[in-house]
């Protein structure tokens, strides 16, 4: 008789004993949670044994459970290996979740306002435990996802898996790749640093070019929230990044995966007869069941992939953070994010509307309708020579355009600006001015010159520098000022550097890195000797505050004739010098200065 007016756990205990009753209770809970597998079933599955009861309990979670109803209960053995899928589709999905989780962590510490966004970044870096770690993971994950998704598309193209009946799956995939790029791009702006502002300005200006003008102008206003990116633009990009685009991405991921399951994973082309699609007809001996093989494999890959990412951000990768966004200061060498470099490169070909809007749109539409163009039944490479050629032509074109999109390509800066830029550049795009990483102790106040390194051997360097000093002080025969006076006047008025005299000294041999930089400076002037005729440079180190030095870079050269930024040569192959009315060369001076603090910790760029 029951101790309670209804059958209860206590009755169970009375009947079976405590141990058995508890075990049965737990067993039942497990079976409910897994939607069909009890402890014994799980144990068997993990031991690699065949299921001991019928119907097969390992199929039950797929039939009754919510999460696994989305996954097929078995795969064809041929699609569970490395080839043909390389797990790229799975990895893309992994990154969707990975980015969501790390993104939510970052959202906690972020406010989308130009007033505080950058300060939020500093807080994440300086005052949130694991803040930098999560930011690095999120950024690395974003870059990795762009690569993985692109490779996924490439693989699908190469194995012709887009063919009937998978045309629509391919189309949703193209939409997903577009969403992935845009998701990554919209996140670019959020740190509100120089890198972000200018990369996005370049990207968003393409929207403005959309024809006709009224559409472009208004699209641009909608996206940026004003003629330029400001508070409204940041808020819009933020909402796109955390809300609108992810929502679309999840929706299309659902559709995409549903289509994948409906049609089955396409088999390697060589396993099917031409024109057949046998993905859904898997012979019994070719089945690999989701439980346990694929499931354990996926859980293992989650752990391994995450470990790889963690290792990368611990030792090899940090998300960049440049100076605060400043619409007044355009950094030299600004580029779009690397996965949009091909658009920037195409833009250098000419018309903004044609190459910035029409070309990418045509490409996108072309990709979507491609399965309806290539309707030949065979998926084998030998029968797809034309299709593969088209694919490789497009790929080569994108690679070449991306190269053309680099800041180095097709943009002419004057040689003096470039040389100074190499010396003083703020850290950006993995580069830093060579002056900045010099150890603070080596920056002894003094005036150093590139002339020192014109000496043939080291013992003569002092002599050369002394001769240079004499040259600086020499008054022109026609009554003009000494060079030193010119330089001092220039520094005093245009650079706010009041110096009493220009007494150049050799770089001390104990200042090894400073010496290398000045020597490198001399070398760069030599490389540019056509444009920078008879050039010499000064590096002037002055003490500003106890732990702060000022470094002035001065270049003096004789002006040469330039045409479209290129040096004009005479018949003898010598650069044509510009002369004043007396037939003298015209000296030019340019200079730039930076400050270096003891704690600034600039690192030489890797590989520099």
């Amino acid at each position, binding site marked *: 008789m029951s101790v309670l007016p209804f059958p209860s756990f206590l009755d169970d205990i009375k009947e079976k004993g405590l141990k058995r009753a508890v075990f049965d209770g737990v067993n039942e809970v497990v079976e409910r949670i897994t939607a069909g597998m009890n402890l014994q079933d799980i144990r068997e599955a*993990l*031991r*690699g044994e065949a299921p001991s009861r019928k119907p097969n309990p390992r199929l039950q979670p797929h039939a009754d459970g919510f999460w696994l109803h989305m996954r097929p209960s078995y795969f064809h*053995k*041929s699609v*569970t*290996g*490395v*080839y043909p899928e390389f797990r790229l589709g799975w990895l893309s999905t992994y990154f969707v979740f990975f980015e969501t989780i790390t993104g939510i962590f970052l959202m906690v510490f972020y406010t989308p306002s130009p*007033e505080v966004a*950058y*300060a939020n970044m*500093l807080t994440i*870096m*300086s*005052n949130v*435990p*694991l803040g*930098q*770690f999560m930011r690095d993971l999120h950024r690395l994950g974003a870059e990795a996802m762009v690569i993985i998704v692109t490779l996924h598309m490439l693989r699908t193209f190469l194995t012709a898996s887009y063919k009937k009946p998978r045309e629509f799956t391919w189309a949703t995939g193209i939409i997903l790749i577009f969403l992935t790029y845009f998701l990554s791009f919209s996140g670019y702006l959020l740190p509100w640093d120089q890198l972000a502002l200018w990369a996005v300005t370049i990207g968003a200006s393409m929207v403005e070019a959309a024809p006709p003008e009224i559409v472009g102008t208004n699209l641009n206003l909608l996206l940026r929230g004003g003629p330029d990116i400001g508070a409204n633009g940041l808020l819009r990009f933020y909402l796109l990044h955390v809300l609108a685009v992810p929502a679309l991405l999840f929706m299309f991921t659902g559709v995409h995966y549903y289509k994948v399951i409906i049609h089955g994973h396409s088999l*390697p082309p060589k396993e099917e007869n031409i024109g057949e699609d046998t993905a859904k007809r898997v012979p019994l001996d070719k089945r*690999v069941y989701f439980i*346990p*093989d*694929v499931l*354990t*494999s996926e*859980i*293992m890959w*989650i*752990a*391994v992939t*995450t*470990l790889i990412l*963690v*290792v990368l951000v*611990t030792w090899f990768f940090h998300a960049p953070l440049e*100076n*605060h966004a*400043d619409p*007044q200061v355009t950094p030299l060498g600004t580029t779009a994010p690397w996965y949009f470099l091909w658009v920037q490169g195409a833009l250098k070909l000419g018309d903004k509307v044609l190459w910035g809007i029409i070309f990418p749109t045509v490409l996108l539409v072309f990709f979507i309708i491609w399965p309806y163009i290539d309707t030949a039944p065979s998926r084998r490479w030998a029968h797809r020579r034309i299709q593969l050629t088209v694919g490789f032509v497009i790929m080569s074109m994108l690679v070449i355009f991306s190269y053309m999109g680099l800041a180095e390509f097709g943009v002419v800066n004057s040689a003096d600006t470039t040389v100074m830029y190499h010396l003083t550049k703020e850290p950006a795009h993995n580069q830093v001015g060579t002056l900045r990483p010099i150890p603070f102790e080596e920056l002894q106040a003094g005036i150093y010159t590139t002339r020192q390194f014109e000496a043939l051997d080291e013992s003569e360097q002092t002599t050369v520098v002394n001769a240079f000093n004499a040259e600086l002080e020499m008054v022109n025969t026609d009554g003009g000022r000494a060079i030193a006076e010119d330089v001092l006047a220039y520094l005093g*008025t245009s650079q*706010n*550097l*009041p110096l009493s005299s220009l007494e150049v000294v050799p770089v001390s041999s104990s200042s090894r890195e400073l010496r290398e930089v000045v020597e490198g400076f001399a070398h760069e002037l030599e490389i540019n000797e056509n444009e920078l005729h008879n050039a010499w440079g000064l590096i002037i180190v002055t003490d*500003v*505050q*106890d*732990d*702060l030095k*000022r470094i002035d870079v001065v270049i003096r050269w004789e002006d040469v004739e330039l045409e479209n930024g290129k040096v004009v040569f005479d018949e003898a192959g010598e650069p044509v010098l510009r002369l004043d009315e007396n037939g003298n060369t015209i000296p030019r001076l340019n200079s730039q*200065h*930076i*400050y*270096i*603090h*003891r*704690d*600034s*910790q600039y690192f030489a760029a890797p590989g520099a």
Partner: protein
Amino acid sequence: MNLQRLLIQKMEHRIIVGTVAFLAMLAIVGWIAINEPGRMAAFSRQYSGRSIERGAILFSNNCSTCHGIDGLGVIGRAPALNTPYLFGHDFLADISLELRTLGFEYDAEGTTDVRKAEIDARRAELEAEQATRVAQMQTALDAQGDYDPTAPGRLQNLGWGGTVRNYVYTTLVHGRPNSATYWPQPMGAWAQIAGGPLRNDQLEDLTNYILNWDKSEEWTIADLNRVRQFPRTPVDGAQFAGLTGEPTVGTDVAAILTEISTLQGNIQSGETLYSTLACAGCHNGGAVGPATEGTWTRASELRLQDPAVQALLPELTAQAYVVHSIVLPYEYLVAPYGPVMPATFGTTLSYQQMADLLIYLQSQDQPIQ
């Protein structure tokens, strides 16, 4: 290798690899977490160093014309910032402290006459020492501005309740008004929120740079004596000549030109305005904005030739160009100058003041090099 099989074939191998990877990840994250305090401190140090560097550039570009590139002040224009006075360093602190302690002891009940005599002797010694130190500061005492060795803290003298940091920061935000007994030109507001050109993070950078002059206990009398210009203490209420209560000119260049065509400008008033509106602060010598001298010639011979300018002006005269530059300073910028000038003159100047300024500027039109 058979690429069409599960990469790791055996179940137990998958379980081991997965578990090891997971544990390794936990270990690394734990290791990172343990090192976070050090990492965060290092980041803060590095950031503040770079912030000071940026502040130095901002100071050199925007502040050094008035405060001196070395921060020691410019005589008659603006006070030193690189000075123990700003940071409240008291060179007589040890002496004053001992004198005060001795004073209490002297007045206390039960101090014997013998002790009192000792105290008197010690006091005399200390006062002599104090006089010697003050004598060493003679250069500073002779320098421009108010410096009193017995009241050596700027903040205390002003009755400022906050720290040096927020004193400097707020000064940058809203600038300084002028008065009859203060500086000839006011300091403009530098914060964007107050109508100036700089963002908050730039003000932080500048403040960090200025505070980096503080040597705290390391200040020497020699540092004090290097100062060219000490601050002045305002005693009069501010009399800002900018606001007259008359209708202001607005930003319609054509309308302004019509209005002032009937007015006769006064060079003297124009010159006073040029100084009280702080124009000279930036335009002197052409450091921050184009030089005062030669404005008219430059306008007619260079600027008006630029099609960009022609598109902006209702008529092609130097007068129209200058009026446009005053009320709409950002519409056309001449390299290398940035958008620094306050864009508020349309809402503060009266028509008469505009006429005065124009005639003064015209009178300054000496040819320049």
